[in-house]
């Protein structure tokens, strides 16, 4: 915890991010190259889904990151409300548009997979609907955090929304177990062994790692951008009050 407190200092965080960003970007690029090679060329077609299984190599990692991103946002919001860390608000604000992007990918690729496999672009079942709600929660957070003239009030209102909306994350995860839905149940993250052949599990896990590193790269860049804009605003205010 003491180490985390050290990085709550914005200047120290900026120095840390400057060192780590090239590494994150490099690892992300490498993972995408290897992951896409396996996903598109070195893995077989599924015996039921056929070639559409290749959509799963982007759809499933995007879905995982959309929930991971919301968890990061909710965790940062809780930290901001309880301990008032200077970086926590910024992290929550930075995570929202990135999480919204990954959720959009989840919804669109799911729809493009659903049409040939289920015969429909969309059904109002619990899994799809709860992911759509996740997308609206991200949009609500983006709008609310920017809706006030006083950024502190905006951050506080958005943090409350992020925490209340967090109840949706376990609903998404367990919706396939709790309700009778069209969406298939979990096949990787379950207590028994994964129900996927290793030849398909490999590209899925590599792409999941690539998406995770891409999310972290974007998050660090977005936090740096937010910190820079806050410095600009502080300097502008200082100049205006000096005149």
């Amino acid at each position, binding site marked *: 915890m003491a180490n985390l407190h050290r990085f709550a200092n914005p200047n120290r965080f900026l120095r840390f991010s400057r060192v780590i960003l090239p590494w994150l970007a490099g690892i992300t690029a490498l993972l995408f190259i290897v992951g896409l090679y396996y996903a598109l060329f070195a893995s077989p*077609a599924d015996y039921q889904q*056929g*070639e*559409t299984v*290749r*959509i799963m190599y*982007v*759809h499933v990692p*995007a879905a995982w990151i959309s929930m991971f991103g919301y968890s990061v946002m909710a965790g940062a919001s809780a930290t901001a409300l309880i301990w008032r860390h200077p970086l926590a608000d910024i992290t929550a604000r930075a995570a929202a*548009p*990135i999480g919204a*992007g990954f959720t*959009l*990918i989840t919804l*669109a*690729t799911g729809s*493009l*997979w659903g*049409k*040939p496999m289920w015969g429909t672009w969309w059904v109002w079942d619990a899994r799809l609907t709860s992911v759509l709600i996740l997308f609206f929660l991200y949009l609500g957070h983006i709008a609310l955090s920017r809706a006030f003239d006083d950024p502190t009030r905006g951050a506080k209102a958005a943090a409350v929304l992020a925490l209340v909306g967090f109840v949706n994350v376990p609903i998404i995860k367990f919706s396939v177990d709790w309700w009778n839905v069209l969406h298939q149940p979990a096949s990787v993250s379950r207590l028994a062994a994964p129900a996927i052949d290793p030849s398909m599990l490999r590209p899925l896990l590599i792409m999941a790692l690539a998406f995770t590193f*891409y999310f972290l790269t*974007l998050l660090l*860049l*977005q936090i*740096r*951008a937010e910190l*820079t*804009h806050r*410095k*600009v605003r502080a*300097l*502008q205010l200082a*100049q205006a009050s000096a005149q």
Partner: protein
Amino acid sequence: MGGHAAFIWPALGLTAAVLILMLVATLYSLRSGEAALSRLKATREPRPGRRSPAPDAG
């Protein structure tokens, strides 16, 4: 693509487009912030040749 290319390539293309768009938007925001910050810092720094007067020796 087993007759499903019309679904697979748009899915992959859309994923790439959203990922690239997020990166471009983030980099643009960072660069514009850094440019504004350096402009502001430049206007705050004292101009060369206009030093503050030396303290009076008495």
